[in-house]
């Protein structure tokens, strides 16, 4: 049993109805395979993966179909065996509703595995680099929703050593229970994954932060720790307060340390990983399995049989909903993620990706349409609840005025978009929407600036080249002229002079002869 540990607290936060019991009453169910699997090339933060298969090619389960072209990227594997029937634009789960490049696989029903790498049973005798390579091969990304490539995150790059490994099991957002049921089902694997990550980063201790509304999951983890006999891993139960599962908030709760603005947890010697990610790491290292499926919560009053499902990546969301009993008459809006941070899906043909933690088919009562926005009355409620200690109304003010320098002065980029400010706003201002607007505008400006820098460099290089060519042409002309002059100065000139001299001599001779003739005739 873990001894009671001092807990710190973060600023603000909200007590919300957790709505967990709708979906966490049954264990994880396996979802059958659909007729086609759509794998977007962009399921993670970083560069798009590059397809390494062609249309018509037969692929085996677990085969790499798209590889990571860059360091910050993640490869994608076939979730089952079958044939690649298309590589092209398909609906993806994205707030824009835009399509993006996907590899479409038609399962052959055999579900036959490709040759997998050897399991690494004795991971403690392996180097951190080898284990990172395995995680990288498996295409693992943060499964909490941010989808940052895990192999990059666990590479501390020889900077400040990691002191504390924080495992995020808080799952603070209402409705979502995929980590909760995963902990009940796979607690030993989670502990294995934690030990592997601890070995990679060399962390002294590990703290698993879990909210007090998941006592069974906490107990399952404690028992798994007892079995593993690793006394440096501790389960720390934190009070249920949204958003305690935010990375920076959880680190503050457990260690009392604050992640610096524009900084990373690694700057204060902390690394944070989601529980589901640690289970995927255990699969990759101890079993040689790539990341080809994940647990997804399907919930809300808009779906008939809410629950948690192990879904193959690429399964259409519409198929997932059908398998959980289909839409009930009350479905009003389909959200990806929870009610606080999720976004509305435009198309339920979009597939489940590595970042899909929850599908919330919300009824009108659960997701009432936005109330008309009214002017800000400067009540300061948003400041009270902001877990990032920001001034939401000031950021809103400047975002609304398109003043992107000022919003950054007010630390817009420390905003975690948790939605607390918009939730309490009595004027119903869609505050998070303003922040997202400002963030994407600033990113666009930054991209344009980079593009114009590139254009300037290329233009300068071209000017320089044109000038150099002109100089070279002139110097070539000059040289040619000089050569010509020299030539005429030597041989040609001499022969000309000789010819002139000869002619003059002839004339002089003629004259002399003529003179002599006249003289003789005169005499």
């Amino acid at each position, binding site marked *: 049993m873990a001894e009671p540990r001092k807990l710190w607290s973060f600023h603000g936060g909200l007590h919300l109805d957790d709505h967990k019991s709708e979906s966490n009453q049954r264990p994880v169910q396996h979802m059958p395979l659909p007729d086609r699997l759509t794998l977007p090339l*962009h399921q993670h933060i970083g560069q798009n993966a590059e397809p390494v298969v062609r249309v018509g090619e037969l692929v085996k389960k677990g085969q790499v179909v798209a590889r990571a072209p860059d360091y910050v990227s993640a490869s994608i594997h076939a979730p089952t065996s079958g044939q690649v029937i298309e590589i092209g634009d398909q609906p*993806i789960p*994205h*707030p*824009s509703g*835009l399509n*993006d490049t996907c590899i479409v696989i038609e399962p052959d029903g055999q579900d036959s595995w490709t040759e997998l790498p050897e399991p690494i049973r004795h991971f403690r005798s392996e180097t951190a680099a080898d284990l990172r390579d395995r995680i990288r091969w498996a295409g693992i990304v943060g499964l909490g929703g941010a989808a940052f490539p895990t192999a990059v995150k666990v590479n501390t790059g020889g900077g400040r050593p990691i002191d504390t490994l924080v495992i995020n099991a808080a799952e603070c957002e209402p409705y979502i229970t995929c980590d909760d049921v995963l902990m009940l089902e796979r607690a030993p694997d989670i502990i294995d994954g934690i030990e592997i990550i601890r070995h990679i980063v060399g962390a002294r201790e590990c703290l698993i932060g879990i909210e007090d509304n998941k006592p069974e999951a906490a107990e399952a983890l404690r028992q798994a720790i007892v079995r593993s006999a690793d006394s440096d891993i501790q389960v720390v139960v934190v009070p249920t307060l949204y958003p305690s599962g935010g990375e920076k908030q959880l680190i503050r709760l457990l260690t009392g340390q604050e992640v610096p603005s524009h900084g990373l947890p690694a700057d204060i010697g902390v690394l944070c990983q989601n529980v589901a990610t640690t289970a995927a790491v255990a699969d990759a290292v101890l079993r040689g399995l790539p990341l080809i499926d994940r647990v997804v919560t399907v919930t809300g009053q808009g779906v008939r049989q809410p629950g948690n499902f192990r879904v193959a990546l690429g399964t259409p969301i519409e198929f997932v909903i059908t398998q959980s009993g289909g839409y009930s008459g009350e479905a009003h809006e389909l959200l990806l993620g929870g009610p606080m941070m999720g976004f509305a899906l435009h198309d339920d043909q979009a597939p489940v990706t590595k970042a899909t933690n929850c599908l919330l088919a919300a009824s009108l009562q659960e997701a009432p349409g*936005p109330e*008309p*926005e*009214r*002017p*800000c*009355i*400067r009540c300061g409620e948003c400041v009270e609840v902001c877990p990032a200690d920001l001034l939401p109304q000031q950021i809103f003010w400047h975002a*609304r005025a398109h003043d992107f320098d000022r919003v950054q002065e007010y630390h817009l980029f420390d905003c975690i978009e948790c939605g607390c400010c918009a939730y309490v706003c009595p004027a119903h201002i*869609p505050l998070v*929407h*303003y922040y*997202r*607007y400002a*963030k*994407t*505008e600033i990113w*666009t*400006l930054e*991209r*344009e600036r980079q*593009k*114009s*820098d*590139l*254009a*300037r460099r*290329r*233009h300068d*290089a*071209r000017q320089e080249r044109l000038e150099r060519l002109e100089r070279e042409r002139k110097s070539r002309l000059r040289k040619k002229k000089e050569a010509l002059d020299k030539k005429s100065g030597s041989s040609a000139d001499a022969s000309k002079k000789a010819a002139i001299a000869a002619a003059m001599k002839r004339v002089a001779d003629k004259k002399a002869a003529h003179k002599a003739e006249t003289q003789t005739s005169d005499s």
Partner: protein
Amino acid sequence: MIAAILTIAGLATVFGLILGYSAIRFRVEGDPIADQIDALLPQTQCGQCSFAGCRPYAEAIAAGEAEINRCPPGGETTMIALAELLGRDPVPLDDEEAAEKPKAVAYIVEEECIGCTLCIQACPVDAIMGAAKQMHTVIVDECTGCELCLPPCPVECIHMHPLEATPQTWKWPFPAQAPSEVVNG
């Protein structure tokens, strides 16, 4: 009287020497104001400002010979940034219509291209690849959309394709329900 004149003259000499020395020692190459202006311009090198590129326009603004509202690709954002940098008042754009054009890149219809290289010579950022009597093509990532390659093409096989948003470049729209009146705090 003499002492006062000598003191002032002495001081003047000393300061003159210091100023003269620093003018040589700390001499700034180029025109820093023009550099700062150039950094704000979009570098399309399109010449719509009637200058031969972004740098000449920046130099003209720095010399006070040109207004700050003549860059359609930069649009209002650039004009306001220039106004802030130079402490001038914002002015309406010279060519509003051109400024509202969506961003586009040149596209060569390869079946029609005769390989004359005229567009390659016109491109200010070397974004067109090709050789004489060989098909040409535009390097999309490097194209600034300046349209300078359009007039020289003898077979009119270059078209401008508007850049479409991808999920990576997509921007959240400005919230639609903004109230018309805001109580000022």
